[in-house]
């Protein structure tokens, strides 16, 4: 027996450990200090950073026995001592999911202990080992420097300079439609401190942190093959291991006859037919500890039948390709094959002066949010409780209850803190739901809480962006007017039923043609689309499944401009749909000025800088495209005049709650601090409210709309109650600034509290998808779903990016970026800012170095860690990020708002790609995306040969 004695956060601890326990295992599982997160296999995430004897170390790399006699500081200890770092990170108002924040604070603490006056570069170096998918690095740097200034022994003057430098990286401004329109909307009066504080102190519990007493662990067997059948499993040896409770297979009576899940309900909850390497393969073991699960899995005798596989979507379309889902389509791997057209494509080509043809390929990317969700289930009689990570609890309920055969009223989904979701936990239909259902069934069978330990989430079940291949033919007039576009597109759906490529329309999402359909006025379009199964991880939607399509749109528009020798901003504007022109025009005008377009834009491949690098500048137009979600909220006006909103939207930290809290404050004229937002679990009977869907980037628009409507209802009830107390007809009364008064005599008023006490007012509103109705006080959303061509107002965006490409290394560096967003109405500036500058880091990674690679011979995924799958680090912060928010058009939500959640992260791909085109003078038809060094070097070599 090994006993270690050590000090953790100034407290002496004596613990029995095994040689294979890491310090992280001990901190999390034995001491309950879950503020330190998993650091993942190669330690490259850095979320497991702790201080050991004054030095930062990754806790998952230190064996517990080596911590004997040491002094350990974790985030909990640093927070307990009220270190200024916690205050600074919270006050910087930038924390979103926050999974990365404890690691960053711990790393920064070690820096400040050693160096009280760090420079900006020192901070970058110190935080370089902690990744953050939400891209909030610029503000992390500011927070650390400001904390340094708050510490004793620092030199405030020296730090001031560095703080100024750091603050100048992001330049964010709002140009309001009308300065005086609202009292609270458009301000930062509300802060996110209440949400940020638990995250910065390590108190926030994410789904993996739900370590319940008496809990069992469950774990899936996964497939080492890209395509296989599990023929037979002999679990007898596994079951003999003490502490192993059960081995469930696809043939187990509890799992055998369950309904299928998935976006199209194609996929069994447990199957012996894995469709990709890393897929779950028909067996779940249950044991006292995770280590025993591993032992049990290791003791299984599994007989596999290996099947032929196909990885490339174009190969999968060939007649002799192995069939991946013969039970659905025995003739081909096509999930969807369809054509769509508008106008007369041939007539359009006849009208054109020029025909431009080419091919764009967008390769697969991984979502890779910091926090990997898990499911922890337990029962109270017939009532099921599950802790999950989700952005969309409502979407899952139906699948779970139908699988389990329980009434929905007995299901209590509990959403843990969401440590960075970015859409990835919307509708993770198959896998997330499958874990939840499996955990529930096993928990009932074992009569104990069960957590599914799913380490393969990140690389196999995280969202993957579909491989997208598009062959295009464009007809254009010499003045840049596009007369026709023909597209043949092939979209990779992966081996699963995720819905990534099929959502929205039963016949396919018509991407990327939808971009031309909706946002341009090009009269003649033809789309030949194929959505294809392959033996790869499932393609799902998340921030931002439309990357590939946005890039295809942006690349084609830019190519037309380049080939016709025109300014791409003018070509985009010329072809934009009428409703968007005012917004787009303004956005382009501001963007051009900020990036100095007129001075810097040049002919492609024309500008070699004195440092030996090619200068490039790129543009792409974009738009707010989201408008689909419906919402249901409850609004309770309390007898003391405060208000509680009860909604479905969990806290993802991006600023949705404060934005929505402004609405009752605005309508009823009360202090927004007196408006709360309760993010309910799924259960109606937990909260007494109707609950509905949320919709990712649409959430503020959708929830806001429902809340606005609820406020109108509440307002009339309050007036009604007041009328009875004041003995006046409700028609003569008005509610303003929190007071009800007769219109002719405002001095004779009742406060809201006086009007309604001693009873509360409770109303609920369920809205249909806004886009089907004419909704919103300013929204005037008067068109059929999605057809923006018919909308009255439109919110467009303009994105500009400047790069330098090194022809010797092929490496591209982002120098300056400008993003101009028309948001309709800016509700909550600090939230919008985070979405814009933070959103930029995803496309930086996805255009320059993030790529998933599979082995062609075995179908095995090769990029299985975050060293090889390269999400941006703090080292990729550009010199300058300019974000301008304007209010020109109007969106579908209350007050004319639109979503901003994933716009920069989708839109910024195109300007980066177009800037590379501008730098090298080589069209992207010659290099696939991402534009990695080797692809650009190859393209340059070929150009030289020509």
């Amino acid at each position, binding site marked *: 027996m090994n006993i270690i004695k050590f000090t953790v956060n100034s407290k002496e601890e004596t613990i029995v450990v*095994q040689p294979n326990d890491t310090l992280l295992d001990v901190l999390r599982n034995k001491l309950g200090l879950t503020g330190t997160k998993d650091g993942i296999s190669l330690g490259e995430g850095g979320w497991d950073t702790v201080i050991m004897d004054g030095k930062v*170390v990754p806790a998952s790399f230190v064996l517990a026995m080596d911590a004997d006699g040491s002094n350990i500081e974790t985030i909990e200890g640093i927070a307990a001592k009220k270190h200024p770092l916690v205050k600074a990170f919270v006050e910087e108002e930038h924390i979103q999911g926050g999974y990365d924040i404890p690691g960053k604070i711990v790393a920064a603490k070690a820096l400040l202990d050693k160096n009280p006056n760090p420079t900006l570069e020192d901070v970058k170096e110190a935080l370089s080992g902690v990744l953050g998918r939400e891209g909030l690095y610029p503000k992390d740097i500011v927070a650390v420097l400001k904390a340094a200034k708050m510490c004793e022994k620092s030199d405030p003057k020296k730090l001031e300079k560095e703080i100024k430098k750091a603050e100048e990286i992001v330049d964010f401004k709002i140009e309001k439609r009308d300065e005086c329109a609202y009292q609270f909307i458009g301000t930062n009066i509300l802060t996110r401190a209440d949400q940020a504080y638990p995250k910065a102190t390590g108190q926030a519990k994410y789904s993996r942190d739900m370590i319940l007493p008496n809990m069992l662990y469950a774990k899936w*067997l996964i497939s*080492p093959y890209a395509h296989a059948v599990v023929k037979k499993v002999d679990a007898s040896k596994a079951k003999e291991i003490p502490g192993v409770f059960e081995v469930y297979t696809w043939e187990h009576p509890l799992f055998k006859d369950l309904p299928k899940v998935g976006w199209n309900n194609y996929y069994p909850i447990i199957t012996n037919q894995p469709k990709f390497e890393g897929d779950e393969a028909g067996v779940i073991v249950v044991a006292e500890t*995770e*280590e025993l699960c591993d032992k049990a899995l290791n003791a299984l005798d599994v007989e596999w039948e290996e099947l032929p596989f196909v990885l490339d979507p174009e190969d999968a379309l060939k007649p002799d390709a192995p069939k991946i889902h013969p039970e659905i389509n025995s003739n081909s791997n096509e999930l969807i094959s369809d054509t769509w057209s508008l106008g007369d494509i041939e007539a359009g080509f006849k009208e054109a002066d020029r025909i431009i043809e080419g091919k764009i390929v967008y390769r697969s990317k991984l979502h890779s949010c910091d926090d990997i969700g898990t499911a922890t289930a337990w029962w109270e009689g017939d009532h099921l409780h599950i802790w999950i990570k989700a952005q969309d609890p409502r979407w899952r309920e139906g699948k779970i209850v139908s699988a389990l055969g329980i009434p929905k009223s007995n299901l209590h989904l509990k959403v843990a803190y969401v440590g960075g979701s970015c859409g990835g936990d919307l509708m993770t239909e198959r896998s997330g739901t499958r874990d939840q259902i499996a955990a529930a069934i096993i928990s009932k069978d074992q009569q104990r809480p069960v957590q599914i330990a799913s380490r393969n989430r990140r690389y196999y079940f995280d969202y993957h962006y579909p491989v997208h291949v598009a062959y295009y033919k464009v007809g254009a007039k010499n003045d840049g007017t596009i007369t026709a576009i023909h597209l043949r597109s092939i979209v990779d759906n992966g081996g699963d039923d995720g819905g990534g490529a099929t959502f929205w329309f039963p016949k396919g999402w018509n991407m990327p043609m939808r971009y031309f359909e909706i946002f341009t006025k090009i009269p003649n379009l033809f789309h030949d689309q194929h959505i294809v199964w392959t033996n790869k991880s499932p393609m799902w939607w998340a921030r931002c499944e439309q990357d590939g399509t946005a890039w295809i749109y942006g690349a084609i528009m830019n190519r037309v401009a380049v080939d016709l020798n025109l300014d791409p901003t003018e070509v985009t504007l010329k072809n934009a749909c009428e409703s968007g022109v005012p917004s787009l025009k303004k956005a382009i005008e501001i963007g051009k000025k900020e990036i100095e377009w007129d001075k810097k834009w040049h002919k492609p491949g024309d500008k070699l800088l004195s440092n030996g690098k090619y200068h490039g500048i790129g543009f792409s137009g974009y738009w707010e495209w989201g408008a689909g979600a419906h919402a249901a909220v409850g609004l309770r006006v309390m007898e003391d005049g405060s208000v509680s909103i009860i909604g479905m939207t969990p806290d993802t930290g991006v600023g949705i709650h404060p934005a929505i809290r402004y609405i009752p404050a605005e309508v009823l004229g009360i202090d927004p601090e007196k408006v709360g937002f309760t993010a309910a679990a799924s259960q109606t009977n937990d909260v007494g409210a109707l609950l509905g869907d949320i919709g990712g980037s649409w959430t503020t628009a959708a929830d806001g709309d429902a809340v606005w409507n609820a406020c109108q209802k509440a307002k009339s009830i309050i007036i009604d109650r007041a009328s009875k107390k004041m003995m006046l007809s409700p028609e003569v009364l008005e509610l303003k600034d929190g007071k009800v008064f007769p219109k002719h005599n405002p001095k004779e008023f009742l406060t809201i509290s006086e009007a309604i006490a001693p009873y509360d007012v409770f109303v609920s509103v369920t809205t249909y998808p806004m886009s089907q109705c004419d909704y919103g006080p300013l929204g005037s959303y008067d068109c059929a779903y999605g057809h923006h061509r018919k909308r009255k107002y439109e919110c467009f965006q303009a994105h500009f990016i400047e790069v330098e490409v090194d022809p010797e290394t092929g490496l591209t560096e982002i120098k300056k970026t400008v993003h101009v967003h028309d948001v309709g109405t800016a509700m909550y500036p600090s939230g919008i800012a985070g979405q814009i500058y933070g959103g930029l880091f995803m496309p930086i990674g996805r255009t320059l170095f993030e790529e998933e690679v599979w082995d062609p011979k075995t179908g095995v995924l*090769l990029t299985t860690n975050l*060293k*090889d799958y390269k999400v941006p680090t703090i*080292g990729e912060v550009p010199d300058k990020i300019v974000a301008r928010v304007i209010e020109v058009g109007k969106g579908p939500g209350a007050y004319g708002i639109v979503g901003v959640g994933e716009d920069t992260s989708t839109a910024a791909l195109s300007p980066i790609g177009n800037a590379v085109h501008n730098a090298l003078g080589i069209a992207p038809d010659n290099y696939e995306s991402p534009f990695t060094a080797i692809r650009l070097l190859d393209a340059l070599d070929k150009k030289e040969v020509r």
Partner: protein
Amino acid sequence: MSMTVKPYYFSDKLSNFDYLIPKSIEEAVDLLQKYKGSAKLMAGGTNIIPALRLKIFPVYPEKIINLKGIKELKYIKEESGFLKIGALTTFSEILENKIVDSTYKALTEAALTSAPPQHRNLMTIGGEVCKEPYSWYMWNPNPIARELISDPSYIANEGMNQYLSIFGGSDMGYAVNISNIAVALSALNAKIVTTQRTIPIEEFYQDKMGVTSNTILAEGEIVKEIQIPKPDKKIKQAFMRISFRKFIDESVVSSAICANMSSDTIEDVRIFLGSVDPKPIRATQAENFLKGKKLLLTLLKKHVKNLFKEQHL
């Protein structure tokens, strides 16, 4: 075709092992001899822990022998014309050392760019020179991938190999030595002192590899010290690397140069490249070209593309 393979699962939890902490080098050597084939050495742990976690060794080691109990292997000193660094000295200790900082710039730069601070606090120079080569295949959690590493059909085409450029294949396939430190030490003409002998670093690595490592260390042989000859004042040195991301990435290619300069003429030079081969490789053609020449940017720019051609063998 039906078959039975070892069950595959992902786990961050290490499987169990016996943990041995010898107090002296002699004891460590004895233990290593005693548990031949079933024991692995551990210094900082930054290599062995992930290797255990991903189960990259064909046989999971029964014993882990941690050298941390051997206090005398932690030092940096100048002695008889050499800088001597004890094998258990960490990267952070090297970076904080004033002598290294002032006289061995290539080493400092290599250490600094090797890993983020969390890892540098654990990584030791002895562990670093012995570290396993890296490739997508070798460090893949799926054992099927690891069986492919010596297959030459995987050489870089169609972008497959973009993260690890490789000049030549070998018995190890495409795993490369990713150690920045090994490259810097090669340029600095370092020697590696083991429990049995003193080996010039150029002879320390071989193309053929054992199970995962490709050093020439015999079973039971342990690295004790790194010796770097003290450069005289005419020596200029540099370490540079290219990586996709500024931080945490392994180098796509790294290079260290140590040149004996008489005013701006190169009298003698050692140039090594890293992350492109199973061992740091010497750019002899480039060295020969530069010897006796004046170091001018225009000269380099004109000839640089041809200087490494011979390496493409």
